[in-house]
């Protein structure tokens, strides 16, 4: 399966198991979503459980809050992460805080899915990586898969989770992993072992990172598309890096990070988002706070730039192989 099919499958599994799961969002009903993640759901589960919504991200989240208060489990799609902001108030002020402010009387089990990230020539409003705007909000979990297998398992875990989950899907790798070499042909998922996705129900637990490459020389923390870019860069440079795919940003798998950095003594964090106040800042802060005396060089960050995502400069913006290489050298040489 590719990542879209895996996400589609997670929906199907959970809609079949749990009659309280409802799915809605812009264009997700009859048409099956602009990326086709919800294809076939309306036909299979009916239009009371799978339906198109008005173009109102605020309304989507707000009605999901009401549904969750009733006892349903809404799984909603925001068409692009760049369009999540009209729903930001409901997410920050309501979704994230209702369990707390009601001392658990009301919970907000829901999943807000959204394709995010660049690499598809989408310009500044189809490329953003706004994850750190959610990791700052207590009460939200933030999940970002990097393979079809994880996407399905994490999405099922997210739907089953009692708390609200922001589920960002790296759209650049919907159809195949991406090593950052944009000028090379696209590899489909079929050739990747993580495209082996069981048909039925399974979960990949939230809050657990995956060590996707064992190594001794440095620890590389990444998520989403950047996992693949990082892995490729490490192989190309022949550095024995330990690459950790965080998978869940909140709650973070700090134990996995600490264990690795204590072993390697060096750390590189990677994000596609603009640098300042990105999630990489939190990672760098945490690593130096908790592993300072193991560190042989500063924690470096590979990031997008502090500009909007520029259409034709996609590859000068995207943190690709060259930026990775330079940072790897820096972390290793310092």
């Amino acid at each position, binding site marked *: 399966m590719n990542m879209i099919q895996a996400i589609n499958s997670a929906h199907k599994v959970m809609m079949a198991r749990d009659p309280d799961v*409802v799915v809605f969002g812009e264009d997700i009903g009859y048409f099956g979503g602009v990326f086709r993640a919800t294809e076939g759901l309306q036909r299979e589960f009916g239009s*009371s*459980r799978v*339906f198109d*919504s*008005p173009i*109102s991200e*605020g*309304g989507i989240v*707000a*009605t*999901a*809050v*009401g*549904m969750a*208060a*009733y*006892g*349903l489990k809404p799984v909603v799609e925001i068409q692009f992460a760049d369009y999540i902001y*009209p729903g930001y*108030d*409901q997410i920050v*002020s*309501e979704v994230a805080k*209702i*369990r*707390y*402010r*009601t*001392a*658990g*009387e*009301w*919970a907000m089990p829901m999943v807000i899915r959204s394709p995010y990230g660049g690499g598809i020539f989408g310009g500044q409003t189809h490329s953003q990586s706004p994850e750190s705007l959610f990791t700052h909000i*207590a*009460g939200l*979990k933030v999940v970002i898969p990097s393979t079809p297998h994880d996407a399905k398992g994490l999405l099922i875990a997210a739907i089953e989770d*009692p*708390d609200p989950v922001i589920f960002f899907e790296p759209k650049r790798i919907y159809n195949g992993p991406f090593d950052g070499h944009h000028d090379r042909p696209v590899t489909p998922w079929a050739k990747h072992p993580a495209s082996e996705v069981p048909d039925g129900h399974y979960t990949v637990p939230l*809050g657990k990172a995956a060590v996707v490459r064992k190594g001794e020389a440095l620890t590389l923390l990444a998520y989403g598309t950047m996992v693949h870019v990082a892995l490729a860069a490490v192989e190309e440079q022949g550095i024995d890096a330990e690459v950790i795919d965080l998978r869940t940003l*909140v*709650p*973070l798998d*700090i*134990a996995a990070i600490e264990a690795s950095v204590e072993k390697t003594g060096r750390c590189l964090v990677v994000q596609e988002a603009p640098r300042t106040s990105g999630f990489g800042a939190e990672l760098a802060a945490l690593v130096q706070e908790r592993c300072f005396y193991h560190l042989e060089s500063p924690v470096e960050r590979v990031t997008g730039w502090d500009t909007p995502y520029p259409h034709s400069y996609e590859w000068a913006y995207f943190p690709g192989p060259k930026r990775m290489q330079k940072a790897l050298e820096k972390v290793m040489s310092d």
Partner: protein
Amino acid sequence: MSDRDPSKLKPNRPKLALHVPEPPFRPGDTPDFSHLQIPAAGEAPRPDVTVAPADTHGLTTHLLRVLDEQHRAVGPWDPRLDPDTLKKMLRDMVTVRIFDDRMYRAQRQGKTSFYMKCTGEEAIAVAAAAALDREDMHFPTYRQQGLLVARGYPLTEMMCQIYSNKGDKLHGRQLPIMYSDKAHGFFSISGNLGTQFPQAVGWAMASAIKGDSRIAMGWIGDGATAEGDFHSAMTFAAVYNVPVVLAVVNNQWAISSFSGIAGAERATFAQRAVGYGIAGLRVDGNDALAVCAAVRWAAERARTNLGPTLIEFFTYRAEGHSTSDDPSGYRPTNESKAWPLGDPIERLKAHLIALGEWNEERQSAMADECDAIVRAAQKEAEKLGILPQQGKDDIGSMFEDVYADMPWHIAEQRDAALAESKGE
């Protein structure tokens, strides 16, 4: 800098001007509401619940009233409530007013940080509660304490929340009056205006998805109708023909801004309804019978899959916005006295008297009784503490319920906070 040299204005064109609405009276003015068009009670026609939303246009510009000048219930909207129901409504309204007075005073005495009264608006929540089923769900604002009182939520519970004390089921986490109670169908009040309005629509959508029979009622203030959430609620309610009653409590003020700043100079709030293809009603919010009748009508529409109704309750915020507000800074102090729609408690009392079911003695005995109950509740609540004593014990509880299970980072912070509190 403005990119236009004023000398370049076309001379033959009128100069544009910004219209900034001003309320009719400011401090120092003598309020005079004689310009207000107040239709006679009983005048509004009562269409069948199957009415086409567009055909409610007349009702959105009218003012639906049931109680006439002689305190009789007149016209097709008379809900024909039995005397016991009327008496319960009256008692609930009196309780709310006494409760408000006591808690306002408690705030002034430094027992808590904040309070908000609903003086003059008691009929709205109390009569709405009487009109809906006990199982229907409310998404209220901070001025619908009457719902809780009418549904029998213990006053002590309310007060414990206000004091953030050991009896506070919200563990001191919320500002006073931000109640929440699932068992009484009262959704957690949000400090963020407007958010609850589309949430009510979502809850009612869920009820419809499940083939349930319970409906929801969403509440919003006149000022807050300007938020995008109002539009989300109306749009989703119209699109999916949602079984929801949407209420705008137009008390004419939003802190210091009069309702003209929310658009009331141009149209009534009820009129918005028709623009979305939603049925609308405009109701005298100080007439408990009219309120009850209107909500019943809307509920019947919702319950029979006829869709949503928007009701504007026209009333007047008789006191300050909250304990943080002094309205004499922006409106005449005697404006509330000049307000012509009267006091909802007095009006309902007079109706019961006119029915021969009530008299002044019974009223004052009842008021005394309510007062005693409120005082007793307060005493009970204060045994569990007042705000200035809080925030020291059980600091660990502050870290619970952020998530269902506490993640490591919050557990670490809890430990740090506990150590801090113990001076470690």
